[in-house]
């Protein structure tokens, strides 16, 4: 007790002395804090104002897209909020298209068939489990069978829904079935790949690991969805509105560009990062200098070249894919920098383990470089998605070859531009949707660390 009291007294004494002594420093501290607070306050205020200013056009765009072009005519109006909110503009974008019914049917049937097939596979797995049979072949056969039944069901259902005579689309369906059976076989093999006690894990969700099971089930459902959309495309062509046509063009171009460009950029940067060959430095420097020239300097030359190949106007979609992918290898800088940070000893170790250069790239580097792969895909997708310059002249005058940017611009560039403005806004909002979704879904990869644990450091 006595021991405890003494420090208490000490503290009081200290505090008393401290207060007297430290009056000035504390005051100083406070004023410093106040100063900081004021600066921060100013910065935050400025930033808030800036972000509001920056957001206004977007808010304006979104709001305008809900102003009916039939009820509230006129391009520029002096009020922000539409008097009545309506979906007229969006309806216009899809006018004359069977898109929604097409999509809805497709998804519905695909989901149903996926469910039935999954149940079948589940039952088959349980049956195999009981039989205590072993053997990869049997497992694959059973799964492939179940998948095939599922596909058959799909074909039958879609035929029935569209009230087609079965033999009308029988040939098409048979060909497709063959393709799907092959896909089913591959999928079945993937299901069975990682387990040595394979039959125990046949139906994904019977697997001990629930998460893994869910993933496999998801993969199966996805495969069915994709298969069914393709099936629908073949059996019932979708009728497109003008806008949907442009949207489809843009999507096609962007997806192809994203895939091709990513493949090119990543392999170029990997080679420049890992291989040592004559002229490597020279190539890198030349590309750097060439990259200083803006891409559209080549516009006219490119147009003539594409014209020779018949890839303008009606052929604008493949033509544009070609243009966007053409010099993509020049954008190797960022991913090369990333590859440089992955220890070389991983490559070497894999090569000694028996991998070829390509296998090293695919099996070791790619999984480690996930953030940069995603970054590259995003960038490669974004550029053609929003491009106007190239798209406008390659598809010049040919409406079916426009991409969204060119098409929408043409709407507000007509004599009736006042009236088209709100529809333009609606189109713009829909363009922003996939990009926003992509960014929201993938942003976490930007900062994800990779090589943790690989190398001591």
């Amino acid at each position, binding site marked *: 007790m006595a021991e405890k009291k003494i420090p208490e007294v000490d503290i009081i004494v200290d505090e008393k002395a401290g207060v007297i002594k430290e009056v000035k420093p504390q005051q100083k501290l406070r004023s410093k804090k106040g100063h900081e607070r004021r600066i921060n306050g100013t910065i935050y205020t400025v930033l808030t104002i800036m972000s509001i200013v920056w957001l206004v056009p977007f808010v304006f765009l979104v709001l305008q897209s809900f102003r009916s072009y039939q009820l509230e005519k006129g391009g520029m109006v002096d009020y922000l909020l539409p008097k009545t909110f309506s979906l007229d503009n969006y309806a216009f974008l899809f006018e004359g298209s069977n898109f929604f019914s097409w999509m809805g049917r497709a998804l519905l049937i695909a989901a149903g068939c996926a469910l039935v097939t999954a149940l079948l596979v589940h039952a088959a797995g349980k049956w195999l489990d009981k039989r205590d049979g072993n053997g990869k072949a049997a497992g694959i056969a059973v799964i492939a069978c179940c998948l095939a039944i599922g596909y058959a069901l799909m074909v039958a259902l879609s035929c029935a829904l569209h009230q087609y005579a079965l033999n009308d689309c029988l040939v098409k369906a048979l060909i497709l079935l063959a393709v799907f059976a092959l896909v089913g076989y591959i999928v079945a093999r993937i299901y069975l790949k990682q*387990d*040595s006690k394979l039959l125990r894990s046949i139906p994904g969700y019977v697997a001990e690991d629930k998460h893994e099971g869910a993933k496999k089930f998801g993969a199966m459902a996805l495969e069915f969805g994709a298969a069914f959309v393709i099936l629908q495309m073949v059996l019932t062509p979708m009728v497109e509105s003008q806008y949907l046509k442009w949207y489809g063009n843009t999507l096609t171009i962007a997806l192809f560009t994203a895939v091709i460009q990513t493949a090119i950029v990543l392999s170029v940067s990997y080679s420049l990062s890992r291989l040592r060959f004559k002229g490597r430095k020279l190539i890198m420097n030349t590309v750097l200098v060439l990259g200083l020239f803006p891409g559209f300097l080549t516009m006219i030359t490119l147009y003539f070249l594409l014209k020779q190949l018949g890839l303008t106007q009606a052929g604008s979609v493949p033509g544009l894919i070609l243009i966007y992918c053409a010099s993509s290898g020049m954008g190797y800088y960022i991913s090369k920098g990333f590859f440089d940070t992955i*220890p070389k*000893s*991983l490559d*070497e*170790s*894999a*090569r*000694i*383990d*028996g*991998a*070829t250069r390509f*296998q090293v790239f695919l*099996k*070791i580097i790619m*999984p*480690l470089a996930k953030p940069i792969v995603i970054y590259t895909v995003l960038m490669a997708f974004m550029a053609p998605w929003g491009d106007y310059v190239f798209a406008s002249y390659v598809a010049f005058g040919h409406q079916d070859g426009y991409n969204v940017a060119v098409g929408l611009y043409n709407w507000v560039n007509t004599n009736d531009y006042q009236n088209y403005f709100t529809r333009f806004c609606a189109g713009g909002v829909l363009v922003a949707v996939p990009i926003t979704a992509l960014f929201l879904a993938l942003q976490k990869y930007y900062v994800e660390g*990779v*090589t*943790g*644990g*690989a*190398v*001591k*450091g």
Partner: protein
Amino acid sequence: MASLKLEHVKKVYDKNVVAVHDFNLEIQDKEFIVFVGPSGCGKSTTLRMIAGLEDISEGTLTIGDRVVNDVEPKDRDIAMVFQNYALYPHISVYENMAFSLRLRKMSNEEVHRRVCEAAEILGITEYLARKPKALSGGQRQRVAIGRAIVREPQVFLMDEPLSNLDAKLRNQMRAEIILLRKRIDTTFIYVTHDQTEAMTLGDRIVIMKDGYIQQVGTPQEVFETPKNLFVAGFIGSPQMNFLKAKLIKSGAQYAVELYGIRVPLSAAKCEKLEKKGVGGKDVILGVRPEHAQLCFDGAPNAIEGTLRVNEMMGSELHLHVQLQDNTPVILRIPTLELTEQQRASLIYGSKLRFTFPEKVTHLFDPQTEESLLY
């Protein structure tokens, strides 16, 4: 399991930097060879050439009876353990070890059997499901070794595998490598800069400096009969003391004179010197610290010096002594041999006298730095 032959192997980097000069070595089947040398001596480069990670500029490399100069690393049937482990961070320990087997399209059962077996040997069975990130340094190194074992390779390469571990773990792993070697009994090539590892692990040691082989021999050989000044200084810790001396020839009899004392050489040494036709000249005399003996009585033929530092290592003392001409000398004196009084007298600045048996002396030519007795 294979023998290895390196003939006139040379490595020239661009800009004409020569990393390895004319490397000749024959490695027997199931031999444990250690490349040792200071950093930048070309030992790692040589190993990487054997692995196929570096091109061979000149000369031939033969594994078994196949010249493999232009064979891809994956086709050389070798396994390598890296200094920084180089584990694949995105897959589990099990998959790390199975990686090479899967590339060889081995059946799942076989892969499982081999991985479990290797894990058993290395005692990492319980970590198989983990990612490398969740392992400690020692465990990671075990996984790296396991990844090499499962392959059952012809040649096992290790590039400073222990230098990232702390001292205690290093000793433990060193012992484990010796045991491992007994179990899997294949050709090992081991690179290190640590002479203790070299001495304890190797059947034969290859000592390198500046891209040249200095000496090849068993640990015993390189310790007892170093070929030149570099080897003498590199092997042994603390390093050998080098003293300026004069070789005196009278008839067939040789003697060494240094710091006013005269040491006659034994008949065997005289014979060697006679054979080489060495006359009387300046030489460098090498004496290992552990061979020096302190003289507390007034024994003749003892060298005198001043004690600068007295390092107490437990079982022995390391005495840093300065001779008359400021040459530093280190003496290793077992603590047990000294009385309490004698130990107390060894303080900074005290004069002491030491001597050494003639049997353990080494003689080097000051110009060529070669041993006169090799």
